């Protein structure tokens, strides 16, 4: 199995193949998310006299990284759909939907992660670090 069939195939083969594709997509997504997060952290470091605690800033950067990742992921989905042949789009076949499960899981995971991180960020803000009061 080559890389393109791992990330851009709509063909259902079997369950182990599906699991493999799912793990690969999740790993790739995590890598992409980390790269975005790291880039944001390094490209937009805390100002020297910033009143915001470093930890809060890092949380904020991560929150920012999630939507950016979604944009990148959407670009992937675009190419993912574009590379599919019309014959691959078997809307009546239940296996067609099973094939889309990894992308769906990533979408849902990112949204869930955003909500969880947002909640944590708000809590941290409320605690307001005293060193920057």
């Amino acid at each position: 199995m080559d890389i393109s069939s791992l990330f851009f195939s709509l063909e259902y083969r079997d369950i182990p193949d599906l699991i493999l594709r799912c793990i690969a997509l999740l790993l790739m997504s995590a890598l992409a998310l980390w790269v975005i997060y790291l880039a944001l952290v390094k490209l937009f470091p805390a100002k020297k006299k910033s009143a915001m605690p470093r930890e809060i800033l890092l949380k904020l950067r991560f929150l920012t990284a999630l939507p950016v990742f979604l944009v990148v992921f959407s670009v992937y989905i675009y190419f993912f759909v574009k590379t599919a042949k019309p014959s691959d789009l078997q809307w009546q076949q239940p296996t067609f939907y099973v094939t889309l499960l990894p992308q769906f899981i990533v979408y849902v995971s990112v949204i869930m992660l955003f909500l969880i991180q947002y909640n944590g960020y708000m809590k941290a803000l409320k605690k307001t670090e005293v060193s920057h009061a």
Partner: protein
Amino acid sequence: MPKPTIIIGIGTSGLRVVEQVQHFYYENTGKNKPDHVEYLYLETDENSYPGVTALKNEIKRVYLDLREKETMINALKKDAKLDGSWLPPAGETGDNEAGAGGWPAFGRAALWGHQNFNQVATSINNAYANVGNIEVKNTEDSKPAVFIVGSLTGGTGSGVFIDLAYMVRNLITDIDDVFGLFLIPGLGKEGGTAGKETIYCNTYAALKSLDYFTGKKNGTKYELSYPNGSRARFEKSPYKLAQIISQDYDGPVPSIGTLDGLYKMAGLYVFLNIYGLREKRMRRLVDAWGNDQMGKYGTFGLSAIQYPKAQLEEFLAVELSMDLLNRWIDPHMYYAQGNKVQMNSARTIIRRDTFAHFEKLLREAFDILNTVEVEKGRQIINDLPRKAKSVNTKQHNEESDYLYIWKLFSSQHAGNYYEAVRNNVQKARDIVLAGIHDWIAGSVNRHENLYLAHMQLQIIVEAIDSCLNYWKNLKVSGQPAKWEAMLDQQIKWMLKKRYKSVFEQNNVLTDRLQNTFELLKMHLFAHKLVDLRKNIVEGDFALATFDTNIELPRLKRLDEIIAIIGRTAGKEERQKSDKQLNVLRARRDQILDDLKDTSIPILRVYPSNDLQYEVEKSKLKYMQGSAKSFPTKNDVIGEQVSLWSYLHQAKDTLNKTLYSTCISQFEREVRKHNSVEDMVISTFVEKEPKEAQRIASRALNALVKVNPDQTTTFRDHMNIPKLVIGPDQPTINRVVEKFTEDINFNDFSNDENGVLVIPGLKNILVFYAEKGLMNNSQLFNPTQHLRYIDNLKELYDDTPKLRGKSAQDWHIIRMPYIKFAKEDIR
């Protein structure tokens, strides 16, 4: 050529007269005294001081200390060189506690006390040296004349007036002569002496003593040794001329209503004498003395028409002073950039600004702790990233990261951040303290309102409370044990997730170490904040910065200052303990009473005939002249001096300083802006000749009641001066001609002998008539011619019996100049 003159006031009455002299001189010349005159006054009452004048008070106080009376009298008695037979019993207190206690013997003893005697001698010598420094030497004009003024009713005046005159003669070798002006009691409206036996007995004793050395019969020599070892031997009388005056007039004229009125007349008399009257009188009196038309005693009649410019100026100064002081303690309004602001409506903004300022101070204080050096050349704030790196890279020698961090911040470990901050927390406290001081002092200087400062200080207390509460919410405590517990939690948190995945572990840990460092500062600073708060709210003594000694403003002190200012302005009723307090409102009322007093022979006239109108007009003119709508501290203490530090002087002196500075400075300002203009008095005489004649004729009556036998009274003589005194001859001519032509009043003439022109005299026209010759050609002698002299004799004889004293004891305390022997006295 002005005659060198020394004026010596004795006792409180003497002081009041000298003050009037100074006042009249200032009114006419803008100076308190001429160069050829010196003012002194001798006082036994430690609480009596010269009052306020616009310029530097020129009256030099010589305090005759009687606090160690018993020791002093015993020492004098033991001194073998002195004749101590006259000394009173040492252990007694006198009729009252103040000064000489109403006993002339104590008054005399006060002069003789060793230190006192030397002090008086030095003061006279200094005064002599000052007035002697004139252009012409060794002529009649260079010989000084000395005026001694005082009352004969109290212990001080009647105790020292004879010794003092001889002492002056002894000290000033080329003296021209000594003149006395003595105030004696009148019979008053009631005409009785009940309850006032002491003052009448003292007067009688003093007059008898004076006559003992003056009268021709006894011809007593004054011969004795002084306490400083010098000897005095005089055959002449103590005074060339002793003038006696009282509140009573001879004749049907009503008495002068108040003692202050008499002081004013005495002051006017002495003022005129240093301003030209003495020379004029002496030229005439030489003939009178040569022809036995004048003796050693005299009196006079004196009246004036005056536009009271100086009083109006002082009144205005007092009103402006009250306005200023009331502005400083206005609880409702303050001024901001020239506009009135309601305190309540501005409270929110004041609160916001004060809170913000306090937060800024706290930040500055904490920042200074950042710069504390934990190792040579390395500040804590720069050391924290190094420590974070050490933890993250495990480059430390401790067993664990936890222990490493714990040792940095623990109270139980030496040489760490904890110790460094604790050793420097005082510096941080001083920054907050100085900042609060600057905020409050700045507000007082800018807005000149102590209630505003009070409110701001209260808000600072609120800010401290709020800060401490916030720290409490963060679970910060000043107790080391609680700090250790908190530190444990902090370290656990610090070592948690440190964002290594994005390579931020050093930054995050540095951030957390800084956070813990901030908590450490709060923990160590909390006590200092509590101390500051406590001192602001209830401190009796101010906390101060270590280096610069800047004091922390306190609410208690502000309350005290507000109370003192309130009492000085006269906002509150006078308390019993306020006896010595100077109150502006009282002074204003006093001036008003004086201006409205019609019992004194000075007729006050105004261009508009309305005192209130004149005051309003002057105030308006002052405001226009100074281009201000309200008085400010700059009028009084200048722009350079901080109002805060001015008000923070010792509270014992604040009332006196405020009172005197305000009045004197505003008087200067009022004068500078010419707010009260001069008036030509002759225009009044031309308009109201009858009223002018009424007041002029009062000068024809002597200021003392004579004629005990209903036949003897004063008579005029061409050699005895009777004068109209004015600024120029044409003015006097207009007045005298108006009198003679319009209303046929011929008692004053405008020939050379009847006129004294004093070019500098302003706003006043004076009528003066000297008295000393009786109608039976006898020379005036108060011990013979006073209307009530027989009553005085009786009173002097009877009072000791009523008080259970022997005649000898009574004599010793009342008549220290004459040895007890009935024949000497009677």
